[in-house]
């Protein structure tokens, strides 16, 4: 207020305001901190939001939005956030929020499936879900491609992708008691499982996919034989009763066993997904596979009761083929009944190896030669009883050098091999022979003769008895003969006594012989 000129109206003074009041208070740190904390939480929230995926499922049974978790090896990796139907109302689409950095395992071949309690055969899985509710299992793939939209599997994969081992395919006509998870045994150790099966497109056979764990997969070679070891296999064949099983477990739930036939050359392990045939049992698996079987006909004239399709054809005890068909034939002219039995023969099983073929030769001609020479040497087909218990017959090829010579007519298809009456037939024939001979005996005449002889004998016996009676009378106690005999004997006794007295006397008095008795005189 130094230069206040008069006349001017009083001007108000500016107020002194302390600097401190305009300065923002330190209290503003508080909302700043709160804002920072809020921002930090928001940022971590956003950061912790993993990728969102969609899963197409058959059914959402047991799943609940906001609750159902996605787990990988028991670790939570995501949560189902939303479940809705597809536009065509056929499937269910579940949207799931994965954990942060979940992109790394959302690969092209990553698999998802719903874990529910499952009881099938040997496997009881997902029991924990009875209490906790279903969850979604996950298996991380190996692909490099990433994706977000998946189709869930119907059931959990039997074998986790990271388990070492190899898959193989078995072909079989029917499934038997096989199922997913059916164990596979090698020398009765469980080494793998059936992972899936599918009917082939033509509907004629099944492809069973199996997994053999490492290191057992190296024992599966190209010549390995697989057979169905399901349960107890009781078979009543020409070889008698046979019971086969792998283990108690396989009796209950079935199983597959494999083995590589011994003696073969060391083979390299089979490649993954190699196809094998699944045999019904070990026996059929171990039959040497018929590489080039031929059909022949054996015509039998006897009853073939007990012979079945599939019955073995034996050559010296070695199975070389099997019966394929049994028919009946009646000759219209002669009314002779015959049974042509079609057999499938593999001559190579007889130990003949068609290896060194001379140029210009073919298998057929070599085989014809072989069969011709065999027949010439007396090879014949014969029906034999395999088991007395069952009466099952089998066809035996055997050498009968005495048999009538025969040849094979190769123009026929199939060619016919000569047969020889079966053992039973032969026995029957000889028995009939004996009976015939017995029948031819003059039994009536023999009987008459016998009767005459018996009458004569009777007479003879009567006379014999009379003779014996007479003889008995002679020796009876009161008979004259015996009395006389007695008297005679007494006389003889006396005589003997007199003689002994004389002898004694002469011993003591030998002079008596000269002088006569003197004793009475002294």
């Amino acid at each position, binding site marked *: 207020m130094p230069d206040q000129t008069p006349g001017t109206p009083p001007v108000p003074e500016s107020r002194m305001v*302390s600097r401190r*009041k305009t300065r*923002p*208070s330190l*209290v*503003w740190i*508080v*909302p700043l*901190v*709160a*804002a920072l*904390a*809020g921002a930090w*939480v*928001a940022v971590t*929230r956003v950061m912790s939001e993993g990728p969102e995926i969609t899963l197409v499922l058959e059914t959402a049974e047991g799943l609940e939005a*906001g*609750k159902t*978790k996605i787990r990988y090896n028991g670790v939570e990796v995501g949560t189902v956030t939303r479940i809705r139907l597809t536009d065509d109302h056929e499937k269910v689409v579940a949207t799931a929020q994965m954990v942060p950095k979940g992109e790394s395992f959302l690969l092209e071949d990553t698999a998802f499936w719903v874990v529910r309690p499952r009881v099938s055969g040997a496997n009881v899985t997902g029991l924990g879900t009875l*209490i*906790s*509710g279903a969850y979604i299992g996950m298996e991380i793939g190996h692909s490099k491609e990433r994706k977000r939209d998946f189709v869930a599997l119907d059931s959990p994969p039997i074998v986790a992708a990271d388990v070492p081992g190899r898959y193989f395919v078995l072909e079989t006509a029917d499934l038997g008691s096989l199922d997913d998870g059916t164990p596979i045994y090698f020398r009765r150790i469980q080494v793998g499982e059936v992972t899936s099966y599918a009917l082939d497109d033509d509907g004629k056979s099944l492809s069973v996919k199996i997994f053999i764990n490492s290191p057992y997969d190296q024992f599966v070679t190209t010549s390995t034989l697989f057979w169905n070891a399901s349960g107890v296999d009781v078979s009543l064949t020409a070889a008698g009763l046979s019971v086969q099983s792998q283990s108690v477990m396989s009796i209950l739930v079935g199983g597959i066993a494999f083995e590589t036939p011994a003696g073969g050359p060391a083979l390299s392990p089979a490649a993954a997904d190699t196809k094998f045939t699944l045999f019904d049992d070990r026996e059929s698996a171990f039959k040497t596979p018929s590489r080039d079987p031929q059909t022949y006909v054996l015509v039998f004239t006897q009853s073939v009761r007990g012979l079945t399709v599939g019955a073995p054809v034996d050559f010296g005890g070695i199975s070389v083929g099997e019966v394929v068909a049994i028919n009946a034939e009646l000759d219209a002219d002669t009314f002779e009944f015959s049974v042509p039995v079609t057999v499938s023969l593999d001559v190579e099983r007889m130990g003949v190896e068609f290896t060194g073929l001379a140029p210009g030769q073919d298998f057929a001609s070599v085989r014809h030669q072989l069969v011709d020479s065999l027949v010439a040497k007396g090879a014949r087909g014969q029906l034999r009883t395999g088991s007395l218990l069952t009466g099952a017959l089998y066809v035996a090829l055997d050498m009968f050098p005495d048999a009538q010579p025969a040849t094979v007519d190769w123009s026929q298809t199939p060619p016919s091999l000569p047969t020889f009456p079966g053992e039973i037939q032969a026995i029957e024939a000889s028995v009939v022979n004996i009976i015939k001979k017995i029948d031819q005996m003059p039994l009536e005449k023999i009987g008459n003769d016998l009767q005459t002889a018996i009458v004569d004998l009777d007479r003879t016996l009567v006379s014999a008895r009379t003779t014996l009676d007479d003889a008995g009378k002679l020796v009876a106690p009161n008979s004259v003969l015996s009395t006389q005999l007695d008297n005679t004997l007494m006389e003889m006794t006396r005589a003997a006594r007199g003689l002994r007295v004389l002898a004694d006397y002469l011993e003591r008095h030998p002079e008596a012989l000269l002088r006569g008795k003197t004793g009475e005189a002294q």
Partner: protein
Amino acid sequence: MSATALTAMQLGLQRCEGCGLVSRPMEDEAEGRCPRCDEGVEFRKRASLQRTWAFLVTAAICYIPANLLPVLSTTTAEGTESDTILQGVVLLWSPTGWPLSLIVLFASIMIPSAKILALTYLLITVQRGSIRNNEQRIRLYRVVDVVGRWSMVDVFVDAFTAALVQLQPLMSVEPGPGLFFFAAVVVSTMLAVESFDPRLIWDPSSEREVAHA
């Protein structure tokens, strides 16, 4: 309270907040002390509006995560479930439990938001020097002051639940991050109420009277 009365500040007097003694401040603007109880004495609470604003802004910021983040996560055999306050209200809403649900709704959602709105209204009107509805505004302030502390109940309930329900293998309850923000809302609104000087409501009208006089 009549608007015509002179205020202590207009007479150059200060009233001690602690003991109520009215004293004359020293010449310089340094902070004075009450001669009776040694409490700091000022004409008005220092930087009242600024502080109130600061705390109010804090409360408003914290109010967002408090309602968006889960306040309680329950772990049972079924899995872990996290619920925000609003989800809790929905969860409690049942034919028999609706009163409880309403209590939670009022104590945890309505009251904090009402407090924030009420204080904002008070601050704006004071800053604009409004002289209307003075009686209603002071009543509003008192209600906010009384009711505000009850919101803390929610925090305590959560804390107790988390401490007591620890049946480890079967079930356990963990406080969620939302709870801390909720507690921050309650505390900062209480601090805001505390920082606000209700006398500021009357100052504009007194000043105007002085000016008239």
